[in-house]
């Protein structure tokens, strides 16, 4: 329990409307989108400025309260769950876009701005912010930076971190630093901003972000290809890249996923097909035409059963939207969904699919797989029921085995969701004791008392 005086201090500094401590409010701020994880905080604050963040951190530090930052709580590894209680620092009321700099092609915004709002605001000025995580309608840019969120366009355009130019953040000692800037080149000292990207709120609280922007592609073309078996789809991916074409999007869905999505969007996806690829090429009209023809040629060569070209923008958008719904649409058919984020070098895609199939049979599970085929980033999702203890055990064994293989092939345990609480063990396997030890030393340098988002990324010394 938290003392009344602490609450009063917080209200005094942040305002009554920005401090929450009713049990029912706390209950609903103890989760994100990661299944099975919940821990209620003791207090939640909604700072509206960097100074307010400093005040909140100061009070928390004096009281020894752990601090967990949160945006919209749409994360998929438990990063914003207050695993040790304490204070949740909710940044979604810091939601102003501060500047769109058309000369330097940058946008600067507060951490709580919704990803899609930012993308739309810069688009209105004729500029493009490519990262588009599936949750962009609700995710915040602060959360995106902290998890280094990906999306559907990473193959050609990269991930969130590739667009970060500067970060303003508050350190656990209450001091404010700005790292990076609008200069295209910057090699002055350690690159703190790169260290902070994907640090999951364990090193500092980001309050402002400056992103690099690019001119939007002039046009694009969206295609759908259907396949009789998933290996052929995997082969198509490698062949397209081998033909020196980098599509902006190359997404894959297996049969289970297709059916779940079709149940919800009803846009006529073929329910019988084993796999489909959603491919988009974009850029100058001449390039789009050439690349589109190139992609179609490869698809015919590998014998895709059907190729469908989106007739117009609306249809293309509908297809991309359908893909974004994949995870939630799978949640429709089963009480629980366990999704993972296995990522392999692209050339191992076909093997990964085969391994997923083998393990699903071995552990008697229904698994739907979709993901960013072009990035080798797959989201095998077990459809399960968290009340069935035996099934849950098998599901975890499934992922255990899968990650062993993924690591063998030089892959990673997380392509874009982060480690959080859910994957600490897998991270330890990936980077080894030496890797974890370095990470802990870095953590200690930033946060000697361990008050920022404790229990994330790696186990505490006393836990492991």
């Amino acid at each position: 329990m938290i003392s009344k005086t602490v609450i009063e201090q917080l209200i005094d500094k942040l305002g009554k409307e920005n401090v929450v401590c009713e049990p029912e409010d706390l209950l609903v701020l103890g989760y994100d989108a990661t299944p099975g994880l919940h821990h209620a905080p003791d207090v939640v604050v909604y700072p509206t400025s960097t100074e307010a963040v400093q005040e909140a951190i100061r009070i928390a530090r004096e009281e020894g309260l752990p601090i967990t930052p949160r945006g919209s709580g749409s994360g998929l590894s438990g990063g914003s769950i207050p695993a040790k209680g304490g204070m949740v620092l909710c940044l979604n009321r810091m939601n102003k876009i501060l500047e769109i700099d058309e000369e330097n092609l940058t946008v600067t915004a507060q951490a709580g701005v919704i990803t899609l709002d930012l993308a739309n605001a810069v688009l209105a000025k004729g500029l493009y912010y490519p990262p588009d995580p599936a949750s962009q309608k609700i995710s915040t840019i602060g959360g995106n930076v902290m998890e280094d969120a990906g999306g559907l366009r990473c193959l050609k355009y990269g991930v969130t971190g590739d667009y970060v130019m500067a970060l303003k953040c508050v350190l656990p000692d209450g001091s404010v630093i700005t790292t990076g800037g609008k200069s295209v080149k910057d090699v002055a000292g350690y690159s703190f901003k790169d260290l902070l990207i994907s640090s999951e709120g364990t090193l500092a609280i980001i309050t402002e972000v400056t992103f690099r922007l690019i001119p939007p592609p002039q046009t694009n073309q969206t295609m759908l290809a259907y396949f009789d078996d998933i290996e052929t789809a995997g082969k198509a991916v490698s062949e397209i890249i081998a033909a020196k074409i980098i599509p902006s999007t190359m997404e894959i869905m297996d049969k289970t996923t297709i059916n779940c999505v079709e149940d919800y969007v009803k846009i006529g996806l073929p329910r019988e097909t084993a796999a489909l690829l959603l491919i988009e090429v974009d850029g100058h009209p001449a390039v789009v035409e050439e690349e589109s023809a190139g992609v179609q040629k490869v698809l015919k060569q590998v014998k895709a059963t059907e190729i469908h070209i989106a007739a117009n923008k609306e249809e293309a958008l509908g297809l991309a939207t359908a893909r974004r719904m994949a995870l939630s649409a799978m949640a429709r058919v089963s009480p629980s969904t366990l999704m993972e984020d296995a990522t392999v070098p692209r050339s191992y895609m076909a093997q990964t699919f085969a391994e997923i199939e083998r393990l699903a049979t071995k552990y008697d599970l229904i698994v739907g797989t979709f993901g960013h085929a072009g990035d080798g980033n797959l989201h095998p999702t077990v459809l399960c029921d968290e009340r069935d203890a035996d099934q849950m055990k098998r599901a975890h064994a499934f992922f255990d085995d899968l990650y062993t293989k993924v690591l063998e092939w030089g892959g990673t345990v997380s392509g874009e969701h982060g480690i959080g609480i859910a994957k600490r063990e897998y991270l330890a396997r990936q980077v080894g004791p030496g890797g974890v030890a370095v990470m802990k030393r870095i953590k200690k340098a930033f946060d000697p008392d361990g008050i920022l988002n404790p229990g994330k990324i790696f186990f505490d010394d006393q836990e492991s």
Partner: protein
Amino acid sequence: MAELEKLGNFTADDAPKYEDILQCMRCGFCLPTCPTFSLTGRERSSPRGRVALARAVGEGKMEFNQAMKEEAFFCLDCRACTTACPSGVQAGSLMEMCRAQVSQQQPLPKWQAGFRDFVLKKMLPNPDLLETSMLPARLYQQLGIQWLVRHSKLLKLGPKWIDKAEGMMPELHQPLRQNIPQLSPAKGEKRGTVAFFLGCVMTLMYAEVSRQTVRVLNHQGFDVITPKAQKCCGAPHMTEGDRETTRQLAQHNLDLFLDLDVDAIVTDCAGCGAALKEYEELLAEREDHQRLQLFHSKIKDISEFLIEVGIHTEGLIPVNKVVTYHEPCHLCHAQGITKQPRDVIKSIPGVEFREMKEANWCCGSAATFSLKFTEASQKILDRKLDNVKDTEAEVLVTSNPGCHLQLAWGMREAEMSQPVLHLSELLGEATPES
């Protein structure tokens, strides 16, 4: 009857199903579509938060407490989250269930409960009683507004709600049910026969609108049967958490309308339409499945029906106006009807249709929400009115009496000169008299 298994701290009767709660995977896709979350920024006032509260009650981690009760009623039940949710969570329906729990778990003091029961169980289900006198003052009583006055404190009604309730009253005509003929014959070549479901609010407050609906249907070539014995659809009871009376009303209407030999059962009230379509689920345990399906398949919103049979536009009088359209939540989210009303509007000669921003965002009416939470309701309404203004349309069309009352009142208050018309009124304007 077999003892029902109890879910956590819910009572056994009319409780949410655990499966329905577990369906939420907390992705948060509902958040940007929820008017009360947008207004408060408070997670517990979001669909995801409300479902999480219900889950905690269902898992015995939280009592069915004041917060749960507040959220059950603060939810607009606009169903925007249902449209947005890829996982198929029905947060609105879950909150309706929780409202039913409120009356079981936190019963009102006897005298208050008595009055509420009088309104919901005696007055609304009995059309004759409801219509005995149509003096506006009596109407207030009949609709339970006097009861609201007496209990404004209890219900936490907003400070200015009484002015608003007064201001919202439209010009009253004779209630339609009493003087509409049982059969209004088709004009010209007959295309079929439909039954007309006449909503309580429509007959009492918007008699003229429903008269137009019947006239339009006749002109389109349909015999219209309006059975006098029909009763309230049950929506007010459902929203107040009285599911048993809802079921009784549903059973009565189901039997009555299935006895008629008609092609469709048409309504011009989005709220009634949504409620009638939900009979299938409501009566699932006590009525024959096929009869329920048959009934469901016949229920049509006026726009849904006209587009389905094909609207005849020859001979329509041009209406040379710029028109925009507000989507009633109970039409677009609860029934998934979005294209048909627009198609009807566009089919009228002379009309220039102009889409408004956030057409499917709630107007803040939401049954008694606009009287209980006057301030919140006003903010939601302001957002809507701004979007209406931006279109510079000359007419605002909608197709639900709750929205109609709220929008007409709001536009008067905001000194906006555009009339609010029901879809049937606009079509009525284009429909020649003979």
